[in-house]
C-alpha cells in the first residue's frame, strides 16, 4: 500500500489529487489532502469578484463532499515542518501539521507519507512592504476571494464619491520591487477602468498603473513577440496601446517600498525616491515560501536541503548562479522532484525557480527592481498532473524513473486577460506564449514559436474567459468526464 500526502488544495494540489484518485485503486492506496481551508477557489475569477461581477460563492466550493466521494482523506490543517527521514519513533517521512478547524485548532499532528506533494503555492508576503495591508484604509487586494470581496466594497465607496463629484486616484500594479503576477493586476486595472467608464465617471478618475517591469508587457516573462497587423511587435506595444486607448497612465521600473493612507513611496531604477498619491490602491505583494522547516532523523535542521533561500522548495532545476546571458531552458525543472528526497515533489508556485525569466535589474542604490518569474494557472495544473502521473507510474511499476515531464521551457501557456465583463460589451485579450520561458537556442529570432504566440483583444476573449470559469470549476468539482477537460 502506498500512502500519498498532498499539501495544498489549489490548482496544482487539487489537480494532482484528482488524477491520483483516478489512477490508483483507493482500496490499496491512501491519498490524503491537507489544506488550511476546505474550500477550492478559482483564483482567476477573483478579478470579477473585485469589481462586483461575481460573488465569492460563484468562484468557490467545499472540497469535503468531493473528497469523500473520491475516497480521499481531507485534513484541515497547515503544514509546518518536514521530516523526510522520519525521526527516532517514526521510520518513514512525515510532516508536522497544525489543525486549522474549529474543533482542534492549534493542535499538532504528524502525518506520515510514502510520497509527498508540496503544492502550497505562495505565501502572500504583504509584510515585505511596509503598510501594504489589504483591508487597511484605501488598500485592496484580489489575491483571495475574501480580499477581492473587500476590494469591491472599497471600490464601490470610491465610485460613490466620484458620483458626488469628488476626484479619485486609482493606483494598481505591483506592491514590491520583485513582485510577480503582473497579469492579474493588469486585468484588475482594466476591469476597474471599465466599471468607471460604464458609469460615466471617467472625468472624476485618474487611473495609474505602477509596475516593477522594465517595460510594460514584460509580465515577468521578459515580454513576448506577437504577430499582428503585418508586424511582429513586442508585448510592450500591446500593453501600452491598451492603456493609451483607455487614457490610463503608467509608472514603470518602480519598486514600491511603503504605503500610508494616501501615498505610495517607491524607488525607481534611476535610484530616485518618489511618491504617488492615491485614493484606492490594489498592489500585488511579493511572493515567498511559507517558511517551512525541515529536520533529519536526528533532529538536525536541514531546511536548506529542501528549500531555497526564498523559502520555496528545491526541485530538479539547475540552481547554479549564472549571468542572465547564460540562462537556458535547461535550467528549468521537468519533474518537480526534490533532488535530495526523491519521494517529495513541488508543483505549481511552491517550487523554487532557478532564476527569474525577466532580466534582473538593480537600482543605482542597489535595490533589485524587476518582475519575478510567474507561474500561472495552466502550467501549475499541468505540473500537478505530471507529478500525479509520475507517482502513479512509480507505484504501479516499482520503477522510479520519471517518465512524464513538463518544463516551462517547453510547455506553452494561455492566459485570457479580462478587460471588462459583459456578454455584449465585455472584452479580453487572449494571450498565448509557447514556451513560457523563451528558448533562444530553438527560436533564435523571437525566443518563442511565433506561430503559436498571440495576443488578441476582443469580445471573443471575454466569452472564452467566461467559459473557462465554468469549465475549470466543472473540472475541479469532479463532475462527469472532468478528466476530459485539459488543464
Amino acid at each position, binding site marked *: 500500500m502506498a500512502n500519498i500526502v498532498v499539501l495544498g488544495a489549489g490548482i496544482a494540489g487539487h489537480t494532482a489529487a484528482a488524477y491520483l484518485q483516478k489512477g490508483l485503486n483507493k482500496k490499496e492506496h491512501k491519498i490524503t489532502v491537507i489544506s488550511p481551508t476546505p474550500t477550492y477557489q478559482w483564483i482567476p475569477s477573483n478579478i470579477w469578484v473585485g469589481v462586483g461581477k461575481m460573488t465569492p460563492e460563484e468562484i468557490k466550493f467545499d472540497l469535503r463532499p468531493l473528497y469523500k466521494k473520491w475516497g480521499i482523506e481531507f485534513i484541515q490543517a497547515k503544514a509546518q515542518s518536514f521530516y523526510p527521514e522520519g525521526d527516532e519513533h517514526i521510520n518513514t517521512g512525515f510532516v508536522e501539521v497544525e489543525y486549522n478547524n474549529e474543533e482542534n485548532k492549534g493542535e499538532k499532528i504528524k502525518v506520515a507519507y510514502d510520497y509527498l506533494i508540496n503544492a502550497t503555492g505562495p505565501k502572500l508576503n504583504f509584510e515585505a512592504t511596509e503598510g501594504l495591508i489589504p483591508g487597511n484604509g484605501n488598500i485592496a487586494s484580489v489575491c483571495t476571494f475574501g480580499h477581492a470581496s473587500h476590494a469591491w466594497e472599497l471600490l464601490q465607496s470610491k465610485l460613490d464619491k466620484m458620483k458626488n463629484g469628488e476626484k479619485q486616484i486609482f493606483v494598481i500594479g505591483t506592491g514590491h520591487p520583485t513582485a510577480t503576477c503582473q497579469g492579474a493586476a493588469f486585468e484588475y486595472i482594466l476591469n476597474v477602468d471599465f466599471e468607471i467608464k460604464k458609469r460615466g465617471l471617467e472625468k472624476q478618475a485618474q487611473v495609474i498603473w505602477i509596475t516593477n517591469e522594465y517595460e510594460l508587457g514584460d509580465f515577468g516573462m521578459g515580454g513576448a513577440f506577437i504577430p499582428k497587423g503585418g508586424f511582429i511587435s513586442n508585448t510592450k*506595444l500591446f500593453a*501600452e*496601446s491598451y*492603456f*493609451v*486607448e*483607455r*487614457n490610463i*497612465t*503608467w509608472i514603470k521600473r518602480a519598486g514600491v517600498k511603503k504605503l500610508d493612507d494616501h501615498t505610495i513611496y517607491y524607488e525607481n531604477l534611476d535610484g530616485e525616491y518618489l511618491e504617488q498619491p492615491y485614493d484606492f490602491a490594489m498592489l500585488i505583494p511579493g511572493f515567498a515560501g511559507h517558511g517551512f522547516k525541515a529536520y533529519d532523523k536526528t533532529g538536525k535542521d536541514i531546511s536548506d536541503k529542501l528549500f531555497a533561500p526564498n523559502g520555496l522548495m528545491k526541485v530538479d532545476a539547475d540552481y547554479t548562479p549564472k549571468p542572465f546571458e547564460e540562462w537556458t531552458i535547461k535550467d528549468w525543472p521537468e519533474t518537480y522532484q526534490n533532488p535530495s528526497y526523491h519521494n517529495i515533489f513541488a508543483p505549481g508556485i511552491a517550487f523554487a525557480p532557478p532564476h527569474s525569466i525577466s532580466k534582473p535589474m538593480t537600482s543605482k542604490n542597489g535595490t533589485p527592481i524587476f518582475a519575478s518569474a510567474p507561474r500561472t494557472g*495552466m*502550467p501549475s495544473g*499541468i505540473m500537478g*498532473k*505530471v507529478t500525479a502521473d509520475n507517482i502513479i507510474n512509480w507505484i504501479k511499476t516499482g520503477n522510479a524513473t520519471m517518465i*512524464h*515531464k*513538463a518544463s516551462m521551457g*517547453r*510547455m*506553452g*501557456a*494561455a492566459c485570457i486577460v479580462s478587460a471588462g465583463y459583459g456578454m*455584449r*460589451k465585455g*472584452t479580453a485579450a*487572449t494571450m*498565448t506564449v*509557447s514556451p513560457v520561458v523563451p528558448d533562444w537556442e530553438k527560436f533564435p529570432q523571437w525566443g518563442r514559436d511565433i506561430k*503559436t504566440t*498571440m495576443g*488578441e*483583444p*476582443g*469580445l*471573443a*476573449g471575454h*466569452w*472564452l474567459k467566461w467559459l473557462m470559469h465554468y469549465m475549470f470549476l466543472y473540472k475541479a468539482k469532479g463532475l462527469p468526464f472532468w478528466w476530459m477537460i*485539459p*488543464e
Partner: protein
Amino acid sequence: MENRLIITKYSEQYYPPTPNNFTLFLRRSIFFQLIRFFILNYKIMKIVIKGHS
C-alpha cells in the same frame, strides 16, 4: 483618438499605437468575434495538447 489630445506631448503615452474605429468595430462585432472565438479556441487547444507529455 481623442486621448491623444489630453496626453502631454512627448510623454510616454504619446507614442504607442491606438486602435482606429475599424479595429474597434471588429473587436466588438458579434459576427466577427464569433468566428474569432472558434479560431482562438483552436489555437489554445494546440498549445494545451503540446504542453502535456
